Each structure stands twice: as C-alpha cells, then as structure tokens.
C-alpha cells in the first residue's frame, strides 16, 4: 500500500514560509533603511547593505525550500508521523486517539491556489497548534482528517456517503448577529490606532491650525468627531463580524462536529463531540431584548480557531429554537432547566458590589462639582446590580450542572459532571454572617482552563454540590 510512504506538502508552502520569514524581517529592514539614509550616500555602506539584504533573501529562499523538502508526513498503521527539520531533525508521532481537534484554514493566498492549511491539536498542546501543515491539497487534508478520525480504510474511499445533517446561518440572521455583536470597543481601538498613526504624517502647520479651530469651535466639534468615529467603528465591527461568520455551517456526524466559517479566510474546525466540555448560552445586552442568543462551547485543547479562543457553535439563535437546535447538534446538552434563584439575602450584596466603585471617587465631588455628572450612570449601575442578582441561578440536573450569571451579557453555562475539573467555594467573613458562598467551577478549555463564577449562593448548597460531584462518574 501507499500508506507508509512519506508525503510532502504542496510546494506552495515554500512561498508561504518565505512570506512569513520576510514578514518578520520587514521591521528590522525598515529600521536599518532609516538609519542608512541618515548616514548619507556612502558607496561602501550602500553596497554592504545591498549585499547583506541580498544574502538574507537568498538564505531565506534556500531555507524555505529546504524546510519544504524535509517536512514530510506519513499515515502509518498506528500513528501519524511527521519528520521535519533542516539542521535538527525532528520526528513526531501523533496517535489518532490523542488528537483533540483538527482545523482547516485557507487564507487568500492559499485559496487562489485552491489549497488549505491544516492544524492538529493534541491533549498536550496549550496555545500553539501541535503541528501545522501549511499548504495541502484539500483532498490530502481530508485524508489526514479522516485518518485522525480513525477511519483508516476510508482514507482512499469515495467522498460521498450519506450526506450528514447540518445547520447554516441565513444572510438575515448573519446581519442581525453582526448588528448586535457589540464589538464596538475593539473596532474603536482599531480606528484609534490607525488615526494616531496617520496623525504623524500630517504636516505640523496643519495640526496647529486644526487645534486652533478646535478650540474655536468648542466642544461640539470634538463631540461630533467622537460620534462619527464611534459610528465608523460600529460599521467596521459589523463588516468584520460578517466576514468572519459568513458561510457559517455546523455539520453533525455521529461523534464529530465540523464548524466552517469565513468569507475571505475560510476556516474549518473539527471536534469530536466528547471533547466538548461545556456549552455557554450568551445573551449580550443588544441581543437579549430580541430573544437572541449566541451559543459557544468550551473544548479541551481547541487551539486558536477564533480570536479570544472562543468556539462559536451558533452565532445567532432564537431562544425558542435553542433546545430544538441543541438537540440536533449536541443532544446531551439539550436540557430544559429551571434554575434555583439566589437567596433574597444575596441581593444586598449584589447592589453594594455594583455601587462600591463610586465610593473612591466621592472626594473628587468636593473638589470638582462638575464630576457629579458621573452620578448619571448610577441608576444604570444599580439596574445592572439588581439584574445580576435576578439572573443568577444554578441547577443540578442529573449529570449536568447549569449555572447562570451576568457581568454585562447574561451567560448560562451547561457543564457535564465529567468535564468539571474542580469546584471551589469561597467565603469571606462578611459572607459567613449571611451564610453565602461564591461558587467557582473549572472546566478544561482553550488554551488551558476556564473558571465560571456565581456569586453569593446559600452555603447549604455546598453539601449538594459535594454529593453530586462524588457520584460515580462511570456512566456520565
């Protein structure tokens, strides 16, 4: 059989590798160039500079070629073997059963050639992927994925079998999701960064003129500019979101999920269902009023599929559709829950926590009365404090622990008992008087773990959690 033969990646990887290297050289190069120009046109330094640049370029090309040449993989009976290294030879054995997730990705460059890159994560990998094949023909990538899935025979079998069921996001929903994504902050920072870069290139006279006029026109202009920037940020965030999540599709197979998304950079994320540790239902403040929610999942060793190590299962879902959809995708997590609310005595603590931030600024009020304007936000803070109290809740349902809390967005976490790494209950002296505890549960996640906290539960629940956690984990 062909199976034990070592294969190389597509030669296009040479170009990819070269680009990565040149990217990392770009900044030093520019710096050198700047200093070079200051020195004046000395012929010898110029020649030396050119020679070094040329040398580095040639070396980079050679290195990339060698790297491609020596990077080989083979699908053996019991393990995927990757051999790599130009000077230091490396040989890696990856057992299919240890693989947590695989993800396929294709940037613009790769897509022009109809290629994909493949990332494989194993249980040990923390932040970086265990290994990445940078340029592969889609059929080769598929073959590796199938092999890692455990179907060695299928590696060469025909693609088409029974078409697995899938869920897609419609254009209207995508737009709604983008509109309510609330990534304004990030986009705002982006614009700010660009503008502050741009300002450096603006001639000095123009700047001073602008400043003069700003003071002349008063605060109004600043305000208008601020609003415009915010609107622009919002639009950018919408576009970014739409690009990221367009063509979103979740495909369900017996024990695996495949999540595909992206218009420009197309990404495929494949995960075995039992690697999923918990499901989060997130209702952002812009989405909640419309009964929309986002569903994310925590995956053990999931790698960097989305920024912030998130893995979105449904970008936007109507709440009355949630259980039905979860049932078809991850039936275990489709539990109807009826959460126990937090005790009445916890409410005071929630309110105090929401307002305590105002205490340190009280002295400022005496010196600058205008700062009293800050108090406009007080009702909002109070409202959120009460909302946090009202939304907090928990329930133990067979093998599932459900916990709901809110910072800004309302988040409901559904975790299987076998996914819970530990439970920690924290009590301060003040809480002791009221018989309350903070509840933390930790599940494995990307890159390492995630802790979900629910504040001010009655301490009597400790017994309940303890008993539940101790139950035999065999059939959960």
């Amino acid at each position, binding site marked *: 059989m062909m199976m034990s033969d070592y294969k190389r990646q597509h030669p296009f990887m040479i170009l990819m590798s070269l680009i990565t290297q040149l990217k990392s050289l770009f900044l030093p190069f520019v710096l050198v160039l700047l200093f070079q120009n200051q020195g004046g046109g000395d012929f010898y330094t110029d020649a030396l500079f050119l020679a070094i640049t040329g040398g580095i370029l040639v070396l980079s090309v050679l290195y990339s070629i060698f790297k491609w040449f020596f990077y080989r993989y083979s699908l053996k009976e019991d393990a995927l073997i990757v051999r790599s290294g130009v000077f230091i030879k490396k040989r890696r054995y990856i057992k299919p059963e240890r693989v947590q997730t695989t993800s396929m990705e294709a940037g613009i460059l790769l897509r022009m050639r109809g290629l994909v890159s493949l990332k494989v994560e194993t249980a040990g990998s923390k932040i970086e992927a265990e290994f990445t094949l940078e340029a592969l023909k889609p059929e080769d990538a598929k073959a590796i994925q199938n092999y890692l899935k455990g179907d060695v025979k299928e590696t060469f079998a025909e693609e088409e079998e029974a078409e697995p069921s899938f869920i897609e996001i419609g254009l209207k929903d995508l737009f709604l999701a983008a509109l309510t994504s609330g990534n304004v902050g990030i986009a705002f920072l982006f614009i700010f960064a660009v503008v502050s870069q741009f300002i450096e290139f603006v001639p000095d006279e123009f700047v001073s003129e602008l400043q003069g006029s700003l003071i002349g026109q008063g605060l109004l202009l600043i305000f208008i500019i601020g609003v415009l920037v915010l609107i622009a940020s919002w639009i950018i965030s919408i576009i970014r979101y739409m690009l990221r999540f367009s063509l979103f599709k979740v495909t369900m197979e017996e024990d695996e999920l495949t999540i595909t998304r992206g218009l420009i950079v197309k990404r495929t994320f494949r995960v075995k269902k039992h690697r999923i540790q918990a499901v989060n239902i997130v209702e952002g403040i812009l989405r909640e009023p419309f009964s929309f929610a986002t569903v994310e999942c925590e995956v053990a060793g999931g790698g960097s599929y989305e920024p912030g190590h998130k893995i979105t299962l449904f970008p936007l879902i109507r709440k009355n559709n949630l259980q039905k959809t979860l049932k078809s995708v991850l039936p275990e997590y489709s539990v109807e829950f009826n959460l126990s609310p937090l005790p009445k005595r916890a409410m005071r603590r929630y309110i105090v926590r929401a307002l305590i931030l105002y205490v340190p600024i009280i002295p400022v009020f005496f010196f600058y009365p205008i700062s009293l304007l800050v108090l406009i936000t007080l009702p909002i803070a109070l409202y959120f404090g009460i909302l946090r109290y009202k939304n907090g809740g928990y329930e133990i349902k067979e093998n599932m622990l459900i916990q709901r809390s809110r910072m800004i967005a309302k988040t409901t976490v559904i975790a299987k*008992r076998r996914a819970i790494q530990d439970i920690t209950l924290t009590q301060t002296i003040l809480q002791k008087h009221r018989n309350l505890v903070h509840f933390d549960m930790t599940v494995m996640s990307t890159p390492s773990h995630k802790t979900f906290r629910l504040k001010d539960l009655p301490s009597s629940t400790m017994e309940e959690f303890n008993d539940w*956690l101790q139950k035999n984990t065999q059939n959960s």
Partner: protein
Amino acid sequence: MSLTAPKHRLHPKAIKAWRIKGLMYSVIYGLFTAAFFITRLFLDIPLSIGIIMGGITLFLAALQIFIIPKIRMIYWGYEIKDNEIDIQHGLIIIKRTLIPMARIQHVDTEHGPIMRKFELATLNIATAGTEHKIPALDFETARTLRKKIASLAALSDDDV
C-alpha cells in the same frame, strides 16, 4: 461553611516553619529599610519616608511571624475521600475546593530548604487545568497520600 470541615489538619510543626519563613521575609523588608537609612547618610531625603518604611516592616513582620501562621493553621484542612479530594484554606477568605478523583492527572511531592529542615513536604495535585497544594505534611504522610491518590485516580480511567 455549612459542609462539615475536612477531617485532617496539617502537621503542627508547620506553624514554626511558616514563622521562620515570615521571619526571612521580614529580614528582607528590614534590609530595604536599612538601605534607605544608609542612602540617607549621603543624600538629603526626608526622614518621614524612613519611618513609614520601618513601620510597615514591623507591621508585616508581626503579621507574618505571629498572626498569619496561627490563623492559617486553624483553617487549613484536607480530606482524601475515595472519589474526591477536599481542601480548605484561607485567612480572611476561606476557600473550599472539591476535586473529583477521576479528574486528577498527576500528584507529586516537593520540599524546600526550610520545610526540609522540619521534615515537611508539600503535596501537589494537578488536574487537566488546575493545580492544588497541600503544604506541610510530614514526609511519611505525604508519601502515603501520594500513593493513595495515585492509585485512587488510576482506578477511574476516564479520558478527557
């Protein structure tokens, strides 16, 4: 806390060990204060800063040598059950951690120079994401617990 406190305490010698540790930290703070006064011989810096530094040093020393070790001992407790490890510790904030036996990835023991002097060891317990410590166990207990946890954890052969 309403759940009955874990059965086992740390070794009583731990208090002494913590006190010595506290003393060593205090000496370090003291050195900073001393450094200040030496600098003051050559430079004109207000005395008040030195007094504040000295005060803080004394305060921290009292806290770390006399007060904290005792309180810490009162709240520290642990219990290794068949399918769970139960740890409680804290000073003002009391933390109670429950770790299912099936989640434990590895256990090991370690001891630093001071702890070794008192023949005490720390037991480290790691799950797939988190790490926990039971400090100041005598060597024999630490060894027994390590073996016990290792065998109990191996019994429940759960994949991640």
